[in-house]
């Protein structure tokens, strides 16, 4: 009887170029590296579009045609959508084709894939509204389920999201919040009335996202029939198997030659071979099942690392310094009538900027595990903080201009008769 509920995350940050102290006050373009390397945003969009988004979307569209009951959901960050529009519009078209089948649900998130939910409730709301509008403009739909950056979740976040009218929110099915409970049921966030919680089945999700091509894994190689069996074994033990993962799993994290696309192609048929199984979107799962219990999540939980907390973004002093700086600037920037300044500031809130400054694994010498376009966390910090200084200069200039305009308006125009 379990529903199989897929959610794929689509996101690409705007990586900050090697922005030096000499650039401050001289050049305010931060995201325009054209080196063709790992900091070149356009090159990355083109690469990942060809390796992942386009072939994976084609596979899913074919799956829907072959199995009209196959359903999935996506959350696509605003910064990713903008880059697709600019550099690879065919990716937007391929997502449109999927949404138009009616089998694909789109979720809400913060436009800039930010940590605003942790740092600024006002900014959080602003970005969610921006994203909702973007989705409506591009795809003609309005999401009713919310997923936060990196599945960051807490009681407080659930309340904010409920207030914005969403009927559901996604979170990591971390052991320490579930304790003896199963992620295969719908829950209710504590002290809420109208919102329900969907939890990631991390074991089955990570089997695909992380372990698929791992030769040391006892279950290697993972095949569609094998995975379908694992899903079916949950019959009677749960309502929904929530498979949440990065969309880049297909073709980018797991390369095509691992067989990941073949796996994806055969999975729906294999899962539907058992007549008790079916696919559902997050909205359908929420509508179909009652909450099995209340979950009290006082501390932030996320889907990152084994810690499943915020330490990948807010773990060291460099990250805290950078985050404090960007949100402190925001208190003033947001009152300035300068759309470009606000936009750049917003793009600098993307969580990836802070992830690149993470030093958790840095001292272990295991730098290969470390996924970052920068040579070191320090390079990421230096470039980012230089940009902050430029942003501060722009803010000061804009403030002066605004004051000047205000004082001009205050001045009484001289009348000829008064001369």
């Amino acid at each position, binding site marked *: 009887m379990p529903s199989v509920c897929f959610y794929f995350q689509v996101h690409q940050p705007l990586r900050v170029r090697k922005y*030096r*102290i*000499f650039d401050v006050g001289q050049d305010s373009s931060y995201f325009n590296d054209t080196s063709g390397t790992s900091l070149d945003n356009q090159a990355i969009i083109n690469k990942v579009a060809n390796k992942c988004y386009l072939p994976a979307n084609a596979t899913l569209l074919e799956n829907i045609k072959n199995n009209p009951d196959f359903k999935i959901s996506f959350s696509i960050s605003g910064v990713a959508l903008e880059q697709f529009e600019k550099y690879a519009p065919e990716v937007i078209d391929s997502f449109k084709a999927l949404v138009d089948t009616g089998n694909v649900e789109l979720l809400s998130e913060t436009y800039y894939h930010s940590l605003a939910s942790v740092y600024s409730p006002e900014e959080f709301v602003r970005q969610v509204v921006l994203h909702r509008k973007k989705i409506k403009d591009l795809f003609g739909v309005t999401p009713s389920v919310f997923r936060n950056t990196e599945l960051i979740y807490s009681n407080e976040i659930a309340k904010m999201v409920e207030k914005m009218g969403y009927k559901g929110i996604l979170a990591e099915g971390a052991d320490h919040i579930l304790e003896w409970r199963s992620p295969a049921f719908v829950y209710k966030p504590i002290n809420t009335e109208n919102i329900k919680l969907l939890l990631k089945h991390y074991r089955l999700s990570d089997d695909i996202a992380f372990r698929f091509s791992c030769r040391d894994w006892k279950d290697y190689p993972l095949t569609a029939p094998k995975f379908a069996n694992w899903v079916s074994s949950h019959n009677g033990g749960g309502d929904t198997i929530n498979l949440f993962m990065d969309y880049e799993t297909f073709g980018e994290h797991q390369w095509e030659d691992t067989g990941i696309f073949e796996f994806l192609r055969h999975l729906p048929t294999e899962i539907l071979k058992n007549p008790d199984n079916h696919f559902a979107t997050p909205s359908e799962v929420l509508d179909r099942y009652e909450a099995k219990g209340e979950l009290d999540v006082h501390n932030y939980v996320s889907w990152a690392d084994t810690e499943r907390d915020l330490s990948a973004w807010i773990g*060291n*002093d*460099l990250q*805290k*310094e950078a985050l404090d700086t960007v949100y402190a600037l925001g208190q003033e920037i947001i009152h300035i009538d300068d759309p470009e300044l606000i936009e750049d500031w917003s793009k600098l809130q993307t969580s990836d900027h802070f992830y690149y400054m993470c*030093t958790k694994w*840095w*001292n272990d*010498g295991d*730098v290969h595990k470390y996924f970052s376009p920068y*040579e*070191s966390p*320090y390079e990421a*910090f*230096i470039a980012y*903080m*230089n940009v902050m200084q430029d942003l501060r200069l722009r803010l000061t200039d804009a403030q002066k201009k605004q004051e000047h305009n205000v004082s001009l308006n205050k001045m009484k125009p001289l009348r000829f008769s008064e001369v």
Partner: protein
Amino acid sequence: MSNSNLPSVLMFGWEFPPFNSGGLGVACEGLSKALSSGGVDLTFVLPFKIPISAPWCKFVFANESSELISDIEVMNLFSGYQSHSIYSELKKSGLPEAISGSLMSRVKAYAMKAPAIAKNNKHSIIHAHDWLTYPAAIAAKKVSGKPLVVHVHATEFDRSGSDNVNKNIYDIELEGFRQADAIVTVSDWTKKKVVSKYGIPAEKVKVVHNGIEFNNNAAIVEHNLDRLKKDGNKIVLFVGRITLQKGPDYFVDMAEKVLLHEPKTFFIISGSGDMETEMIRRVSSRGLSNRFIFCGFLRNAELAKVYKAADMFVMPSVSEPFGLVPLEAMISGVPVLISKESGVSEVISTALKSHFWDIDDMADKVVSVLRHKKFGNHLSTYGKEEVKTIHWHKAAQSLISLYNSLVVEPKYAFIPIYIRAA
């Protein structure tokens, strides 16, 4: 493993603290101590008799007959690592040739004493440090037939720059590499040089990074520097010989750029060398004299005080086989920026790294540390932790396994029976 299974090593060195002119002596001290505590039976050979208090191993002096000489004279003898004096002859009358002759003749004299030393001291491995000792070690190998390990702390290319290579020294190095059963280099950076410049197969070369002994720096900042700091000035430090190899000119160029953004910065240069006058002139011609302090060559206690005052340490070396100095700075909690053209950059991650020629990148990094207190604190705290892990015991373990592989499998000892002449 019991000690009786460990090899006994006859080690040829050239200098030893406190009578050392450079990093070679420091490395020999650290290594010999760690090897001995790892259970290796070590006999350390030096060319001249000097008073040493290193209780962990036995010392043999090639020139036992000579009387103990004064400290200053001893210092002059070990001038092999001061590039400006390699060819300068020591004119000391009344001393035997082994002491008074040119560097090259001292190297040869050392080699002539080596066979007797090899006969009189039981060993299963010969280990030699840098070219000055290779002729002695090769002579010892001819007598005992034991496997030879040559240890490369620097090549002639590092000491002299690529255009100024001394052919005689190069030849001695090459002969040492050929005669050796295994070559050890202090970094991958140096290994690549041994392979590319001397045509040695990479399989013959093993990288064993240096270590450092962690001694907390409890020095107190000198009054004058303390006042500068209390007035809100920052201090950026250069420590090393003022020679082409160490990149002092890049340091000055970088300083000029840093001052554009952080004018309240002082740059301290500790060291001496053949480019010193040129550097002082360069600094004054740029109008930076009031921002630079040249304090000459500083020894341990004085240097410790300067480390304590520094906000940032920069090593812009053009070519650095290893580079112990940044580790000293890290022990004192100073954030470090090191050139990527250094061996030490292979072993530390809590450091900023630039190419020595990338002035903009270096200036950018220095300004960032000076400007963001939390950044400096982060590098300081975690750098201090990391440097504790760069221990000589690691190097000793690596050498012991190399010794064992050489002793257990003597070359050509086993010839498969199916190989027959046609």
